Structure formats: C-alpha cells, structure tokens
C-alpha cells in the first residue's frame, strides 16, 4: 500500500504542476488581451500627440466605439470571474478580477480624457460640455468617476485598512453596472448594443442571486444534479455569448478601422 502511494505521488504532483502551469499561462493570456484597446487606438493617439492633421477628428470618431466598447467588454469579463468560479469551482482565474478591474479604469479614464479633449466637433462648447453636456455623457462620466474608489481599494493594504467595510466599498461595482447600462440605454435605446449588454448581464446577475449561488455551490461540492447543472450552464453560456460575440465583433470592426486610421465618420 505504502509503495503504491509512493508510486502515485509523483504522478499526482505532475498533474497538479501541469494544472498550475496551465493556469499561469491562461492568466497571462487573459492579461495580454487587456492591451488590445490601447494597441487599436495607438496609431491614432500617436498621430494626435505628433499633431498630424486630422488626428483629432480620427480620435474623436473612434474613441467611443473602441475604448467605450473595450471598457464594457473588460467590465463584463471582470464580472464573469465569480460566476465562472461558482459554476466550475476553478480558482486559477480569480486573480483576473482585480487585473480586469484596474484595466477597466485605465481604459475608461483614457476614453474620458480623449473624449474631453478631442470631441469638440461633435459637442461644441467647453470640456464640461464634452463630458457632461448630455444625459448619456453624465452617466458615462459618473461610471468612470465611481471606478476611482474601487481602484483605490483594489489592493491588500486597503483591504486590511478597511476591514469589513472593504466589501461594502467593492459593492459599488453593482452601482457602476447600473450606470453603465443606463449610459448604453441612453445611447442606443432598446436596440443593438444595449440589448447585447442586457444579454451578457442577465446570466451574470442570475448567478449572483444568493440562493441560486448557494444552491449551485452546494450541488457542485456534493457532486449532485450534474445533468441539470450542465444544462443550465450551457443555456447561461449561450445567452452570454449571444451578447458577447457581437460586442467583440463591433470592437474588431471599429477597432480595425481605428488602427489603420480610417474610422467610420458619423
């Protein structure tokens, strides 16, 4: 028996180490994806900094489509971390929640800064008009501002300093979720992007309902209701992908146009 146990130990160790390696590689892959919005906007931003003619108009045309869509995709991916853990029990990806939160703030802040400085052709007036001249602009600006306390507390020392209050500060994420959806509704009404946003939000919201989450967690640990859990997971994933895929496509189309500095003019 003891010999058998010894014989299995290296094999189990290998499997654990392979899983750890896979997790590490996957985490870095998902971290690398966070560079995409900056890569897509890079040429236009460089042109703007160099003062090339037409650069400000290009950035003005691209900023909402590329950085706005990217911010929302990053936000949704961040929100997907906890439900994925609930459904699968995986832990390797949990670190991405903080990384995606910080990246979301960086993307949203860049979006707001570029919008404030370059969209004078669309929103004539002062900087204040460009970030708060319409209802949808106020909702977007509020969403970005609310990310400040979230990012400021997204570290271990803030967690220790705030103690139990840390969790209530992090619940601001749900307020941001609401203001982002309001922003998209005011922009698109009950069509396209807003409907995709609802499609990606619905499964994530469902899996956060405490009784659903608790029951799923209990069933997963006990290994019961496998077929039911698999079926519900497939349905939830299908609804999520039905909203996520068009948003990625939107980013690919608009981002590609921005990268070659031929953005679609309104």
């Amino acid at each position, binding site marked *: 028996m003891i010999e058998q146990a010894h014989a299995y130990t290296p094999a189990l160790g290998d499997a654990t180490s392979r899983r750890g390696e896979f997790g590490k590689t996957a985490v870095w892959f998902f971290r690398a994806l966070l560079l995409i919005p900056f890569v897509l906007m890079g040429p236009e931003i460089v042109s703007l900094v160099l003062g090339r003619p037409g650069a400000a108009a290009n950035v003005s045309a691209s900023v909402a489509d590329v950085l706005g869509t990217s911010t929302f995709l990053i936000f949704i991916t961040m929100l997907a971390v906890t439900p994925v853990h609930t459904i699968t029990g995986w832990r390797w990806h949990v670190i991405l929640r903080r990384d995606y939160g910080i990246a979301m703030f960086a993307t949203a802040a860049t979006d707001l800064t570029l919008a404030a400085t370059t969209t004078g052709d*669309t929103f004539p007036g002062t900087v204040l008009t460009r970030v708060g001249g*319409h209802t949808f602009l106020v909702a977007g600006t509020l969403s970005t501002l609310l990310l400040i306390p979230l990012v400021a507390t997204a570290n271990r020392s803030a967690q220790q300093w705030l103690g139990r209050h840390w969790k209530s500060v992090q619940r601001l994420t749900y307020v941001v979720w609401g203001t982002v959806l309001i922003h998209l509704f*005011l922009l698109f009404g009950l*069509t396209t992007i807003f409907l995709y946003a609802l499609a990606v939000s619905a499964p994530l919201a469902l899996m956060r309902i405490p009784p659903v989450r608790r029951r799923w967690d209990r069933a997963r640990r006990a290994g019961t209701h496998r077929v039911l859990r698999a079926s519900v997971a497939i349905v939830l994933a299908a609804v999520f992908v039905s909203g996520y895929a068009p948003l990625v496509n939107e980013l690919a189309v608009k981002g590609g146009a921005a990268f070659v500095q031929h953005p679609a003019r309104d």
Partner: protein
Amino acid sequence: MDALTTVCVVVAVALGTSQVVKEGLQEFVYRPPGVGASPSEPDANGSAVAEQPAPLGEIVPAVPAPAPRPVTRSRHNHHGPQYR
C-alpha cells in the same frame, strides 16, 4: 472611502446640473442620431435603421409659398413712379 465616493457622485451631478442650467433641459436630454457613438451594424430586423428618425423635411409639411400680393395703389398717394 465614503467621502471619496461622495465627491465623485457630487462632481458628476454638479457637471450635469451646470450643463442643464447652461444649455437648457431640451439640449441636455435630446441626442441627435449618431452623436456619441456611430451607428453599429444593423441587426437582422433592421431595427438600427428603423430607429433613425425621418428627415425633418418628411415630418414638417412644406409651407406653400405665399401668393404675390397684388399691388394696391393708394388713391391718396400719388408720389409713386407711375404718377411721375
């Protein structure tokens, strides 16, 4: 952190309020089509296209051109060129 959060909310609300006061509620609420985000790919039902409001010319009927006013000659004023 509560203070920071409150400051962020107050800044956004003040921004919106100042714009309402400055530009008016109509301007603040109304968003012309295409402003803020370029129209995305139309979906299968063409709802993105359907959302676009009709051009102003189709909503407001054309005002008929006013008929030329008949030239009325004043019986009391004989300083017109025809009397010279």
